[in-house]
């Protein structure tokens, strides 16, 4: 009878754990992330929870890498934001929500265009332009297209890195049982050495 009740308890616990584990691949850790890329004269990006839903209407602060505040922006209803930068440099973006979430990301100076006049619309090659002007326009066009293409890849990479992996969860559970198992070992040695005389 005792054994049956103990097995029932164990079965319940196992079922609970199995149910929770089954949900891990579908939902994920509770953390907030910021994704941002630089292009031209601005930084654009979005903020999201690990589950994928966007962080809406939250402040994002922009700093230089030596800690000076450059400005602040807010995510819109789609979790997206855009920020005009004073010049190409490394920037650090920090998102803080009032309920205790914090995320950071950096945008390298390489992302931005070198200081020049505004990008003109890509035009077909004119019959007699100077060579260097043509090259410069071409570079801008290529840069713009590449940024657009790479952005999707960068987003996927960012999300991949943040994913909670099942083997990490299983590892964590293993550690938990290990720690408590060691604790039990220590405890049982202690009670055995301090064994009270019979009749107490």
């Amino acid at each position, binding site marked *: 009878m005792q054994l049956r*009740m103990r097995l*029932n*308890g164990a079965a*319940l*616990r196992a079922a*609970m*754990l199995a149910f*929770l*584990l089954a*949900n*891990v691949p579908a*939902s*994920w*850790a*509770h*953390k907030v992330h910021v994704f941002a890329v630089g292009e031209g004269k601005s930084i654009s990006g979005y903020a999201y*929870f*690990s*589950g*994928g*839903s966007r*962080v*809406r*209407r*939250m402040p994002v602060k922009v700093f230089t890498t030596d800690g000076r505040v450059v400005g602040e922006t807010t995510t819109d209803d789609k979790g997206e934001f855009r920020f005009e930068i004073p010049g190409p440099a490394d920037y650090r973006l920090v998102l*803080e*929500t*009032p*309920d*205790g*979430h*914090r*995320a950071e990301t950096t945008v390298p100076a390489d992302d931005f265009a070198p200081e020049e006049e505004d990008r003109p619309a890509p035009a077909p090659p004119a019959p007699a332009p100077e060579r260097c002007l043509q090259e410069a326009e071409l570079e801008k066009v290529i840069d713009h297209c590449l940024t657009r293409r790479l952005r999707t890849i960068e987003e996927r990479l960012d999300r991949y890195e943040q994913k*909670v992996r099942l083997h*990490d*969860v299983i*590892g*964590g*559970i293993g*550690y*938990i*049982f290990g*720690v*408590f*198992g060691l*604790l*039990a070992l220590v*405890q*049982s040695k202690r*009670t055995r050495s301090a064994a009270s005389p019979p009749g*107490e």
Partner: protein
Amino acid sequence: MHIAEGLLSGTVLGAGWAVTAAGTAAGLRRMTPEDVPRTATLASAFFVASLVHVPLGISSAHLILNGLMGVILGVRAFPAMLVALFLQAVLFQFGGLSTLGVNTADMALPAVLCAAAMRRWIRRASPGQSFVPGFVVGAASVALAGICTASALGLSGRDFRQAGTLIFAAHIPIMVVEGLVTGAAVVFLKRVRPELPGDAGDTSRFEKEAG
């Protein structure tokens, strides 16, 4: 809830560690080898439960299960949550390491206190009647954990009301779900292992039964 690094003041962090240290010491002192499988399983459930998250409005929430741990483990919930939160911080960067003290305290202390407050009612009630105090423990533990989190943020110079409303609103459905889960669990345990929900972790009870 899981507060990230760099948001809390030193005093709040210190206070959190003090509470967690005291609770963990008390929990470890009351732990017998018999308690260990149960503690480890609940710590694992707590570890995994926080990973199942539900987007709600502009925030998101996850199952906490602190009420259930308070009822079944009593003050031993402190070491259980500490270990689970530590692993979450290390493996998933879910919450910071310096904030481990505060994060453990704001989830464990409400659970232990609510469970202690309802203990006599649970112990005296019949299995069916024990659903109500179980529900109260489950829901109240989540609510108080939210208030403690908002307080920690507020005392560190952040906007308490904004944090509190955001956290509270996001967790109302969680409070209901956890109330139901804890209530059901208490009813089940009263039927199967009646001494369990009323156990505050006082080992002398086991020695009396054995002797």
